[in-house]
């Protein structure tokens, strides 16, 4: 019998203990909480009742599907705007003849390290119809008619917030793709040049296939980040995610239910049920990516 290698257990123990205490235990306890309800100050076990209410009681389900739909749109905007722009910026930045690349790189990345509260507040002021610089700037170029109180209109508010979030986080895909582009060896590109593949076609035919795995990772990070999002909406629109719940995403819906809002008292059990739903959605999404997409992606040995 081989000797038990105790040092492995000892070295793993701190990380496992801390991770279990602050991540695993709260996660499972939240899921457990979703199976209870409170009647007359006592907690009783109700099984899947909270989930049944959430999905089939029209009062709850309309809110849930509304939040989920908004969340999907939030994600779609990020995928369609943030990630292509990130890739394009990285491609431009990695161009060897670009001057001041380091300056642009830092400038584009800086919003990422700002707090949501600052970003939400700053953009609210920029877009404010009363004090904001957006209406004034549009006025200066004669396009004042294009201005609308975007954050206050049901039809624009969510898209506006998604674009603000894109502005904040476009630095992350840019950095990851930039790193991936830098790791492509010169010889491959030179070999392509010998075969007559240069400029843009070098990007589409050589670089893009090589950075696809990175784009996959970015997509999954965006997915998880968007479905966990809460801060920006809360900072800009408050817990009621106005106007008329048009910016309500799963995070704000969960917060409002769990902690209560104004005269609405908090309901930790229904709140946990929503949190459980969010967890399931993210888990399914990540699984689809891991087993459906990543395993089929062609990888090239560099």
């Amino acid at each position, binding site marked *: 019998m081989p000797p038990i290698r105790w040092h492995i257990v000892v070295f793993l123990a701190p990380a496992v203990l801390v991770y279990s205490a602050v991540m695993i235990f709260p996660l499972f306890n939240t899921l457990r909480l979703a199976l209870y309800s409170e009647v007359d100050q006592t907690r009783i076990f109700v099984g899947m009742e909270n989930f049944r209410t959430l999905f089939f009681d029209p009062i709850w389900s309309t809110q849930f599907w509304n939040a989920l739909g908004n969340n999907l749109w939030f994600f779609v905007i990020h995928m369609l705007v943030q990630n292509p722009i990130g890739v394009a910026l990285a491609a431009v930045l990695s161009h060897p003849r670009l001057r001041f690349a380091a300056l642009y790189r830092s400038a584009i990345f800086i919003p990422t390290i700002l707090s949501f509260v600052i970003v939400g507040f700053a953009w609210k002021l920029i877009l404010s*119809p009363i004090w904001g610089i957006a209406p004034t700037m549009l006025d200066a170029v004669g396009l004042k008619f294009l201005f609308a109180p975007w954050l206050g209109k049901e039809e624009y508010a969510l898209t506006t917030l998604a674009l603000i979030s894109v502005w904040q986080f476009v630095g992350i895909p840019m950095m990851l793709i930039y790193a991936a582009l830098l790791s492509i060896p010169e010889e491959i590109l030179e070999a392509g040049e010998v075969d007559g593949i240069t400029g843009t076609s070098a990007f589409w035919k050589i670089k893009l296939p090589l950075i696809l795995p990175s784009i996959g990772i970015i997509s999954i990070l965006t997915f998880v980040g968007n479905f966990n999002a809460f801060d920006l909406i809360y900072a800009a629109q408050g817990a009621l995610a106005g*106007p008329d719940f048009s910016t309500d995403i799963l995070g704000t819906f969960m917060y409002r239910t769990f902690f*209560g809002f104004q*005269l*609405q008292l*908090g309901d930790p059990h229904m709140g946990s049920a929503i949190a459980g739903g969010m967890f399931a959605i993210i888990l399914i999404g990540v699984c689809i990516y891991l087993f459906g997409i990543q395993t089929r992606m062609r990888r090239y040995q560099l």
Partner: protein
Amino acid sequence: MIRNTLKLALISTALTATGAIAQDVTITIESWRNDDLALWQDKIIPAFEAENPGIKVKFTPSAPTEYNAVLNSKLEAGSAGDIITCRPFDASLALFEAGHLADLDDMAAMSNFSDVAKSAWQTDDGSASFCVPMASVIHGFIYNKDAFAEVGVEVPNTEAEFFAALEAFKADGTYIPMAMGTNDQWEAATMGYNNIGPNYWKGEEGRRALIAGDQKLTDEAWTAPYETLAKWGAYLGDGYEAQTYPDSQNLFTLGRAAIYPAGSWEISGFNAQADFEMGAFKPPVQNAGDTCYISDHTDIGIGMNAATANPEAAKTFLAWVGSPEFASIFGNALPGFFPLSNEPVTLEDPLAKEIVGWRGECESTIRSTYQILSRGTPNLENDTWGASVAAIKGTSTAAELGAKLQDGLASWYAPHQ
């Protein structure tokens, strides 16, 4: 010998140290009134500490919209302060039923308050009181006297005069007729619907009938205010859809707007910010000479955390809050929060005096959604915010809004089923 002296010295320091701890009790107040931080620290707390040596008071407010959530979590976790500022009705009732607020019926100071004043912090049957009533706020409209003089508009009494005044300001163009936005939603319901509404549903009469199930939210009395709100949209500033509550306050105090749909709690802030003379008028009535109704909403009470480590000090503080002396300090330090104690308090601020004078001319009521009706899901108060915004923006008609709110209420409230 040296060792003995040392021992003695150690013992005596230990004794004085424990003595100091026993004497100086610090009690902490939870509140949502972060706007009043300076007033508590400079006026109210020093007055109490001067009279009660040995008790130190700390005022630790959180943001109004987060207060309920923060307080509930703190109470659950056992980290809440000794004194709890009480929201009216169900939020506090739930805290009492969960055992977080102490029963205060045996406190002598409670006899300084009328039953109406206490009603916001009692069990439904009135058998137990758990917060000392502190203040109420009155709704109405605050206006810029200079603007009215400049444009030549009379202070309106009836609804027709009110809209004529708004129209005059709009035609003149110098001032935004009315400063209110719909971004934060609650102003539309609180300063809109529940401000003008009591004139339609006849104050307490309609409110009680709604609770009893004799009137419905689809009735004329309850939908008509939405029809009136729908006419407001045209007179609010450009881009009011994204205008926040602080935006509205600033627009008015900078002198860019003529009328501000208000709660009296704005007075002290406006006094500090505005450099023009302000006046106030009541929610307009339909015809001259009609009985007027005002929302005189019991808004703040103060109670004791049942789990406090310093119940004696906390009770001393609450008894002081119930005294006429506190009412006088508070009413004058915070003009616009009108004390509820039976003892009449003389107010010095002219604007506050004007508003509190309406109590004599009009019938008082409280906000329609606060007692009992916001107990279930969907929450009637929160839905009223959305409905009032939709009315102002014109995205739904008054009849649709009434029907939606009635359906929501009927889904859980037995007297309406």
